[in-house]
């Protein structure tokens, strides 16, 4: 579906995830974070950047993978993005959340 976020027309899934990462900007990330009740800090952006790099390198995202990231530990991940951190952080990062085949 189409929606306007941070003044830009975007293609989103029904759950609000970007379908085309090339449309992503930091302003859009900020706006989605606000909707999720998250005030972004430099630390948040560091994590978002890391997630985007992982996805671009075809690496599967998982909470356990965070442990080996060298960027942050799992406790901090939950503190930064409360309530399903992977689900929330991927939405802000403009990348797909982890999925199965059906």
């Amino acid at each position, binding site marked *: 579906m189409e929606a306007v976020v941070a003044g830009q027309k975007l293609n989103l*899934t*029904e*759950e609000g995830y970007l379908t085309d990462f090339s449309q992503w900007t930091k302003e859009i990330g900020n706006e989605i974070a606000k909707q999720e009740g998250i005030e972004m800090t430099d630390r948040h952006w560091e994590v978002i950047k890391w997630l985007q790099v992982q996805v671009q*390198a*075809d*690496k*599967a995202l*998982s*909470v*356990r*993978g965070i442990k*080996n990231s060298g960027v942050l530990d*799992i*406790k901090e991940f*939950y503190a930064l993005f409360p*309530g*399903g*951190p*992977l*689900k929330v952080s991927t939405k802000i990062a403009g990348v797909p*959340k*982890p*999925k*199965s*085949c*059906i």
Partner: protein
Amino acid sequence: MKNLLILGAGTAGTMMANHLRSKLKKDQWNISIVDQYKTHYYQPGFLFLPFDIYTEDQVKKDGKKFIPKGVNYIQKKIEQIFPDENKVQLEDETLNYDLLIIATGSKIAPEETEGMKGKNWHKNVFDFYTYEGALALRNKLREFKGGKMIVHFTEMPIKCPVAPLEFVFLADDYFTKKGIREKVDLTYVTPLGGAFTKPKATAALGHLLSEKNIKVVTDFAIEKVDNETNQIVDYGGQIVDFDLLVTVPTNMGDELIARSGMGDDLNFVPTNHHTLQSIDHENVFVIGDATNVPASKAGSVAHFASETLTDNILLYLDGKPLKQEFDGHANCFIETGKNKALLIDFNYTQEPVEGTFPIPGIGPLKLLKESIFNHWGKLAFRWIYWNMLLKGISIPLVSRNMSTKGKKI
């Protein structure tokens, strides 16, 4: 003489040996395939073994039977690949290659989760992704009188991503037939946002779990298995109790890939999505579960990929550009219990949808819908696997690339 070396004689490696022996001239190319294990397992059968639907004999055969004449079958442990020197070191010899195919698959890594492979492993904590695990679980289920049973998977990617769902559906059916279903509290625990994660599948199948009285716990990122309290605990603080835990641990590529410095964090080899050439070495190709391509890790995917890879290897040897062809095509039957199954047919970009298969508008198989005919298809597949798939024979009417015909897109 030139040397083509295949590492791994599982589904993908065996298919490549069969494809290439008939395509490469015997007076120009030696083909060798290396695998330390003698037995070839029909891995889809591990889903049926715990429920006494299949016997041990139906899921294993001597691997040698499927390696074609004219291929050198080496049953030795592989120590390391040296891709810059075109060499592979085995336990007691070193092989040189001109072209290498990596087909070393993926396997469970329960040690990645604290307490999973603890004192209760194969006592009340089971996997069903190994022959030993499926068999131990069968023996446990034969005696199980009731209680809290969890079916769980740790994280994506896993081999056959629908298997945990199929397992919980078959468990419901198994306990119903045994007359103890009301004594079993069945819970499906997933790290993802739902039991189904694609819009069309969620709409078509979302009702199945509640209909079968299966509870669902979502967004569960497992931290540990507590062997004292018999609980699984997630990083966010969620806790689920169990008497019997059936889990799919983290899946990883072979340690060989890590030893050789050729993999990502999960030991999967970075591979071109459409040509199946490795990203780092032009004379190394990768197929099946060993790759990092975002397709399902499944035998059908390896089958479709093997046709593209065969063409691409011949093109590579001729010095011609490779086909950017492979589309991540997968075709999977999904058991839903009560002798019914679903069929899904999808690729990298197209999610599973409803429709008819393989003949558009006719079928006889129905996509994303439960039917008895699909269940027969799943059972018939074992014969197709041993007699057609491993030998590299194309399945009539089913092309390597996914067809959109007959699909409601």
